[in-house]
C-alpha cells in the first residue's frame, strides 16, 4: 500500500517544500495527491509521536514534577523538541526597548505537535477590517473565497464543535464538525454567569477527534478523554501533521523528507524564477543545493521571512520591491484573569479531563457596539476558559500551616476559574523583523532582529477584557486573584501567544504587498509562501485553521498551474 519514496539524489522534485508544520504538511498532502513529486526540507530532527510521546506518565515521573523550565517552557513532557523560546546556537536579537519572544520547535511536524488546537473560523469582517474601521489593510479575498476551504479543512483535520450563530462567527456547513464534548461544571457556571450578563458562551471548535477517522494509511482514533494534549497524541486524536498529512503523503511515493535540513536561502535561475534552495545539514554542517520547478516556503512566519530577506541580490531581500517584507508583524494580544469561586469549593468529584483543553469559550460579541463607536478599541478579542480539578494555585490558598492547609487544598481544588484573553493586534510601523547586520547563527546564516510595540488600540482592548472578566468574577461572588495591573503590565510580550503573522502580506498588487492571494510572490512566479507570513491582518481568532485553508487553496492553485504547463 505504501509506495517507496523517490530518491531526491536521483530524481529532481517538482516542488520543494520548506517546513513540515500546518502549511507544509497541507502542501505535501495536497500536491502529492495531485501527482507532483515533493521534496520536504525540515530544519528539525525526525520525530514520531507514536514512539516518543510519553502520554500516560504522571507528572511525578518527571524532573521538577514536570514544571516549566527554560529548557522545556511548557513542561517536561511537552512535545516541543530542540527549541522553545530559544534554540541553542540559533539566536535572534531585538531592537532596544523591544520585548519579543519567538517560539520555535526543531522537529518534524513543527508546532502542530504541541499546538493549542482552538480553531475558530474567521468571519467576513476579519478579511475586510479596514473597510469597517479604516485601520490596516483589507485582504484581497473575502470570507466567501475561503469558506469552501474551511469546510474541507475541518473535515480533513477533524474538528469538534457546535453552532455559534453570532455576527462575524460563521457556522460550518452541515457535516463538517464532530460533536463537541459536554462542558464541565466550572464551564457551566461561567456560561450561566456570562449569559445572565449578555455575554455569549459557545462550544469551542477544537481540532480533537470525538469520532474515529478511519484511513488506510493513517487511521486516527477518537479522543479517549485523558492525558494532556501538549504532550502529543499517540492515538492521533489531536491533529498533528506527523500522524496525518505526512504519512498520507509519504504513502503516495511522491514525498521525500529530509530532516535536519536548515534552509539558508532561495537560489535563482533568473530574476523572476527560483531554481531551488541551499540548506545546511544541522548534524554535519555539510552544505547542499537542491532544485525543483517550484519552491514553497512554509517555514513559519518569521523563518520564511528571514529566508527571503537572506535571499536575492540586494539587502532588501528577495521578492521585496514593495518594501513590505518583514513589516506588519503582529501577534495576538494576551492577558489572563483568575478567581477563586467559593461556590465551587468542595464540590462533588468526577472526571474533568475531557478532551484536554477548554470545551467552551466566549466569542467576541461587541461588533455592533464597536461599529457605533461605543468602545475605545477597534478590534475584537475572545476568552478561552479554564477551570478543573487539580492542584489549586498558591494564590487561592490561605497562609496557614498544618491540618488547615490540607483542608484548604481540598476545598480549593477545582474552585478556581481562569479567563484567558486573545485579541487582535493592528499592524503598526514599529513592529517588524529585519536581518541583524552583526549576528549570525551557528551555520553562518544572518539572524532576525525584532522590533515590537503594542499600540493604544491593544492596551485599551486588554483593559476592557480585564473589566469584563472581573465583572464576571464578581457576579459569581468570586475572589479575584489577579494583582490590579495597568494594561501595559497586564498584556503579554510580543510573540508570547505564538501567533506571529503578517511579515510577507498578501494584497491586490505588487506595490503594496509581497504575495497574491494564493501566496505566489509577485516577483518570482514559481515561489509560493504558505504560512502565517502572508496574512494581511490577524483577527482575534487563532490562525491555524486559516493557515491550513489558505495552504490548501494555494496548493490546488499551484497544482493547476503545473497542469497547464506554467513550469514546463
Amino acid at each position, binding site marked *: 500500500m505504501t509506495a517507496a519514496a523517490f530518491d531526491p539524489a536521483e530524481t529532481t522534485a517538482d516542488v520543494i517544500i520548506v517546513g513540515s508544520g500546518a502549511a507544509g504538511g497541507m502542501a505535501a498532502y495536497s500536491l502529492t495527491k495531485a501527482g507532483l513529486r515533493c521534496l520536504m526540507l525540515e530544519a528539525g530532527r525526525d520525530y514520531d509521536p507514536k514512539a*516518543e510521546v510519553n502520554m*500516560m506518565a*504522571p*507528572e511525578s515521573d518527571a*524532573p*521538577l*514534577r*514536570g*514544571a516549566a*523550565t*527554560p*529548557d*522545556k517552557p*511548557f*513542561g*517536561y*513532557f*511537552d512535545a516541543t523538541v530542540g527549541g*522553545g523560546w530559544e*534554540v541553542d546556537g540559533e539566536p535572534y536579537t531585538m531592537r532596544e526597548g523591544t520585548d519579543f519572544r519567538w517560539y520555535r520547535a526543531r522537529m518534524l511536524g513543527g508546532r502542530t505537535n504541541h499546538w493549542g488546537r482552538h480553531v475558530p473560523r474567521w468571519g467576513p469582517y476579519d478579511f475586510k477590517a479596514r473597510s469597517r474601521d479604516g485601520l490596516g489593510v483589507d485582504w484581497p479575498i473575502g470570507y466567501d473565497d475561503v469558506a469552501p476551504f474551511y469546510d474541507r479543512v475541518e473535515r480533513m483535520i477533524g474538528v469538534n464543535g457546535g453552532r455559534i450563530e453570532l455576527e462575524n462567527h460563521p457556522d460550518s456547513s452541515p457535516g463538517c464538525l464532530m460533536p463537541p*464534548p459536554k462542558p*464541565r*461544571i466550572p464551564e*457551566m*457556571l461561567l456560561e*450561566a454567569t456570562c*449569559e*445572565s450578563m449578555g455575554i455569549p458562551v459557545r462550544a469551542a471548535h477544537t481540532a480533537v477527534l*470525538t469520532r474515529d477517522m478511519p484511513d488506510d494509511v493513517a487511521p486516527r482514533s*477518537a479522543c479517549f*478523554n*485523558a*492525558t494532556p494534549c*501538549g504532550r502529543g497524541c499517540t492515538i492521533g486524536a489531536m491533529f498533528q501533521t506527523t500522524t496525518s498529512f505526512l504519512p498520507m503523503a509519504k504513502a503516495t511515493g511522491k514525498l521525500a523528507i529530509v530532516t535536519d535540513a536548515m534552509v539558508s536561502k532561495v537560489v535563482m535561475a533568473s530574476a523572476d524564477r527560483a531554481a531551488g534552495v541551499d540548506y545546511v545539514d544541522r548534524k554535519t554542517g555539510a552544505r547542499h543545493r537542491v532544485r525543483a520547478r517550484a519552491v514553497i516556503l512554509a517555514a513559519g512566519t518569521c523563518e520564511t521571512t528571514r529566508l527571503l530577506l537572506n535571499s536575492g541580490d540586494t539587502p532588501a531581500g528577495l521578492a521585496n520591491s514593495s518594501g513590505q517584507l518583514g513589516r506588519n508583524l503582529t501577534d495576538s494580544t494576551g492577558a*489572563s484573569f483568575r478567581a477563586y469561586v467559593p461556590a*465551587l469549593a468542595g464540590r462533588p*468529584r*468526577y472526571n*474533568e*479531563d475531557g478532551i484536554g483543553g477548554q470545551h467552551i469559550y466566549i466569542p467576541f460579541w461587541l461588533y455592533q457596539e464597536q461599529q457605533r463607536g461605543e468602545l475605545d478599541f477597534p478590534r475584537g478579542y475572545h476568552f478561552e476558559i*479554564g477551570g*478543573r*480539578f*487539580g*492542584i489549586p*494555585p*498558591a494564590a487561592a*490558598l*490561605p497562609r496557614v*500551616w*498544618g*491540618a488547615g492547609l*490540607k483542608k484548604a*487544598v*481540598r476545598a480549593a481544588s477545582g474552585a478556581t476559574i*481562569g479567563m484567558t484573553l486573545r485579541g487582535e493586534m493592528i499592524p503598526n510601523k514599529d513592529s517588524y523583523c529585519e536581518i541583524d547586520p552583526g549576528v549570525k547563527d551557528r551555520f553562518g546564516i544572518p539572524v532576525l532582529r525584532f522590533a515590537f510595540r503594542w499600540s493604544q488600540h491593544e492596551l485599551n482592548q486588554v483593559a476592557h477584557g480585564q473589566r469584563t472578566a472581573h465583572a464576571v468574577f464578581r457576579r*459569581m*461572588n468570586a475572589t479575584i486573584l489577579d*494583582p490590579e*495591573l495597568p494594561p501595559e503590565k497586564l498584556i503579554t510580550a510580543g510573540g508570547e501567544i505564538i501567533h506571529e503573522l503578517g511579515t510577507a502580506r498578501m494584497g491586490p498588487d505588487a506595490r503594496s504587498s509581497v504575495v497574491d492571494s494564493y501566496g505566489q510572490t509577485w516577483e518570482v512566479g514559481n515561489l509560493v509562501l504558505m504560512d502565517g507570513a502572508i496574512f494581511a491582518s490577524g483577527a482575534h481568532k487563532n490562525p491555524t485553521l486559516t493557515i491550513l485553508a489558505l495552504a490548501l487553496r494555494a496548493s490546488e492553485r499551484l497544482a493547476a498551474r503545473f497542469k497547464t504547463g506554467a513550469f514546463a
Partner: protein
Amino acid sequence: MTPSRRETLQWVMAAAALPLARWTPPAMAAGTDTPPPFDVVADWPDAVPPPLPARGYGRDPDLMAPKVPWPLTLNKAQRATVDLLGDLILPADEQSPGAGTLGVGAFVDEWISAPYPIQRQDRAQVLGGLMWLDAQSRALHGAAFDAITPAQRAGLLDALVVTTPVTSMAKPVAFMDTLRYLFVLGFYSLPEGKADMGFIGDQPTPGDYPGPTPEALAHFTDMLDGLGLPVS
C-alpha cells in the same frame, strides 16, 4: 521577569497540562504590621553556599525515561529537617500521610538543586531559611529546630504565616511561602496527594466524554440558586 509575566506563563502552562499551578505568593506588605511573638529575631544569613556546577536536562531529553541530571544539595540533617517541616505543614490525617513521610524533602532537594533561574532563587531562599530557622530556634530555645519541643516549633511556624510581617521577618516569611508552595506541589502531585484531593482522572475513557455526574449536576443547580443565576 515581572510578576505579571510569571503569572501569565504559569496560566499558559496550567491551561496546557494538569493544573500544576506555578507559584504566585499571596500578597504581602512588609514592614507594616504584626510583630513576631518574640523579642529576638535572628539575622537572615548573609550568604548561602554557592551551587555546584550543573547542567539542565536540555531541550530534547528522553521523555520515555525521565532523569534528574543535576547533583543534589541537602545533607542528611537538612533533608531530615525538611521532612520534619513537611510533616508539620502538611501533617498526616485520616485522608493521607504527612508530606515528610512521603519524602517531600527529596523533592525539595531536587527542586532547589536544579540549574534554572526560578529554582536558583528558591535555593537561596530555602537554604537561607533553614539556616535562619536553626539560628532563631537556638536564640529562643537554645537548640536547633529539630531538637526543640513540638509546642516551640508550632510557635515558630505561627510567626511565619502572618500576612503583614515586620521588616525583620519579611525574608523568613517569604521562605515559608516558598517552602509551603513546594510542599503543596511536591505532595499533591503524588498519587497519595491526588487521592487526598479526591482527584479522578488520568484514565482513558473511550466514547463521548461523560460529563458531570448527577450528583455534581444537582450541586450545580443549588449553586446557581445560591448565586441567583437562572438555570438554563
